[in-house]
């Protein structure tokens, strides 16, 4: 070792360091996070290629064949109904009920008669966006957990406190970086899907015009999808900060989603609107999430049956439920981080 040189450097008070910039650098430099993002990108490319094989712009011959089969089905259905209505073995007063209502031709869609239907913006873009929101939320959960979990495993968070002793500031900055990471994931995921959809609609899509208001509804859903990615990242971050270990946080997350939620859905159906998965769905889906909540079992002499009540969990309610859980999780982790002795 050589003698330590001493020369003019900025006094500690005037040094202009940035914990935020440093935390961003730490996050970006983590090999495991780079690996996760890389795998996610590969997965996206693979799924996009699969999507290309599942959709097809129909040729005129295919369309004509589908139209012919559609018309054949309509004719068969009308024929069946007429025969049914003429069947004297059925009491006259019951025939309407037994033979069903008159045929609604709008229920027959030509796309259903094509093996590989074309990609449509109105149906497939929002559906894919929901999938991207769920995927980025899960990816965010793992990234958020490993981001702070690794700091606890290596105890580098303790080393950081030799440089910035204000624990609230340290955890606040880390939470901010987790929010930013989640938002970046969500935005990039939604943009990638939008780009892939653009290619799909041009090469494998239907040229049907989108209805009025479609793009504003879709933007809202995609925005809420980004929000879900942030929520997922914060859940992973908050859980790992609480249990101080990435693996334990992932284990708790798996146990909750695989066991606790399934058990609650089965044994306490009324808890569904309060579950994380349902709340996440309610947050993102356009118009909220429709749930059928099990009611009382009724027996009116013709056998017992269970009544189900449809319940709409709105976007706002889903978001507020998730926010409440997050608040408790982050507050508990922050309180413990501030109070605990660190070794």
């Amino acid at each position, binding site marked *: *070792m050589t003698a330590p040189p*001493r020369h003019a450097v900025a006094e500690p008070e005037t040094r202009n360091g*940035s914990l935020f910039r440093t935390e961003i*650098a730490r996050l970006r430099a983590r*090999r495991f996070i780079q690996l996760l993002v890389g795998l996610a990108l590969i997965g996206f490319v693979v799924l996009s290629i699969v999507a290309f094989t599942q959709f097809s712009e129909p040729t005129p011959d295919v369309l004509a064949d589908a139209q012919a089969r559609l018309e054949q089905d309509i004719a068969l259905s009308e024929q069946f109904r007429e025969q049914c209505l003429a069947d004297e073995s059925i009491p006259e007063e019951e025939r309407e009920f037994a033979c069903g209502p008159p045929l609604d031709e709008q229920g027959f869609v030509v796309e259903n008669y094509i093996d590989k239907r074309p990609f449509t913006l109105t149906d497939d873009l929002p559906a894919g966006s929901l999938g991207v929101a769920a995927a980025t939320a899960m990816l965010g959960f793992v990234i958020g957990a490993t981001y702070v979990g690794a700091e606890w495993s290596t105890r580098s968070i303790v*080393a*950081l406190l*030799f440089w910035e*002793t204000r624990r609230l500031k340290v955890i606040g900055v880390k939470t901010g970086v987790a929010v930013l990471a989640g938002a970046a994931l969500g935005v990039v995921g939604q943009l990638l899907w939008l780009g892939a959809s653009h290619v799909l609609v041009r090469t494998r899509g239907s040229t049907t015009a989108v209805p009025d208001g479609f793009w504003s509804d879709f933007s809202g859903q995609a925005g809420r999808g980004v929000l879900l990615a942030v929520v997922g990242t914060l859940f992973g971050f908050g859980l790992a900060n609480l249990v101080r270990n990435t693996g334990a946080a992932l284990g708790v997350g798996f146990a909750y989603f695989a066991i606790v939620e399934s058990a609650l859905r089965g044994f306490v159906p009324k808890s569904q609107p309060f579950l994380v998965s349902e709340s996440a769905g309610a947050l993102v889906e356009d118009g909220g999430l429709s749930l059928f909540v099990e009611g009382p079992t009724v027996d009116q002499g013709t056998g017992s049956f269970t009544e189900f009540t449809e319940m709409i969990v709105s976007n706002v309610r889903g978001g507020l439920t998730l926010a409440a859980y997050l608040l408790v999780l982050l507050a508990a982790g922050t309180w413990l981080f501030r109070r605990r002795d660190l070794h």
Partner: protein
Amino acid sequence: MAVVEVTGAHKSYHRRGKPPQKALDGLDLSVGAHRVHGFLGPNGSGKTTTIRALLGLVRVDSGSMRLLDRPVPEDLPDVIGSVGALVESPLFFPNFSGRRNLRLLAGVAGVSRDRVEECLEIVGLRDRGEDKFKGYSLGMKQRLGIAAALLKEPTLLVLDEPSNGLDPAGIREVRELIKQLGSDGQTTVLLSSHLLSEVQQVCDDVTIIARGKLVATGAVADVLATGSTGDVRVMVPGHQQAAYDVLMAAGFTLTALADAWLVHGVTEPSTITRALAAHDLYLSELSPISADLESVFLDLTAEEV
């Protein structure tokens, strides 16, 4: 001005189902400026707890602490920029290179990249700066920890067992570095070590603690003096028996060694020279047996441990 001042610090650890464990029991510690201060104590005596409390990682139950004349933990954010610390094992990301680990820390406080390179140079890791931390030997990890502690050009450097894992050459280099820092007139070093010889060689002052209490403190020489044996080894070639008779007559107590006498209870060794010379007996050796820090440490902490 004391750079580190701990007064009456108490700290107990509470574990579920177990009685509280006292880590600090009214500890006092005072470290003077621009000195190398050794901090000695048996395992579990409260050294690391004290250091962690000073750095804000552990809260004491009662007592007061000051760093660089400011109360801590209240004013710690204001003084931490002048304090470098290596506490127990260095804490770095294993998959990052040594250089990247240092740069990340430097970024928090706005320390320049040049300073990172300087510190890597100081600890002899500049050529290995791009290697992953997990690939470093124990000694290299320890050196990187020292480099991190030096980044801020601290006025107070807290080193907890800095020689851990170093080979003999590395230990010597670290000791030289600590000596240089202690003699630059700007840096105070608080050195916690279980290596008594290290403290004796490197430190100006020492504080010995046991069971969370102060046992002895002061300049190393003064603390050594408290454990002085008063024994002197005397050799008078060819006249050992005559020397024995003279010294016994003078009132000394002696023990025979292989080729010399061990004279006990000597407050002034020159009295031996005078007594023997008066009988025309001349010494070839007169060696006061000085206490080493190890024996003083063991004596002082024997009752506490």
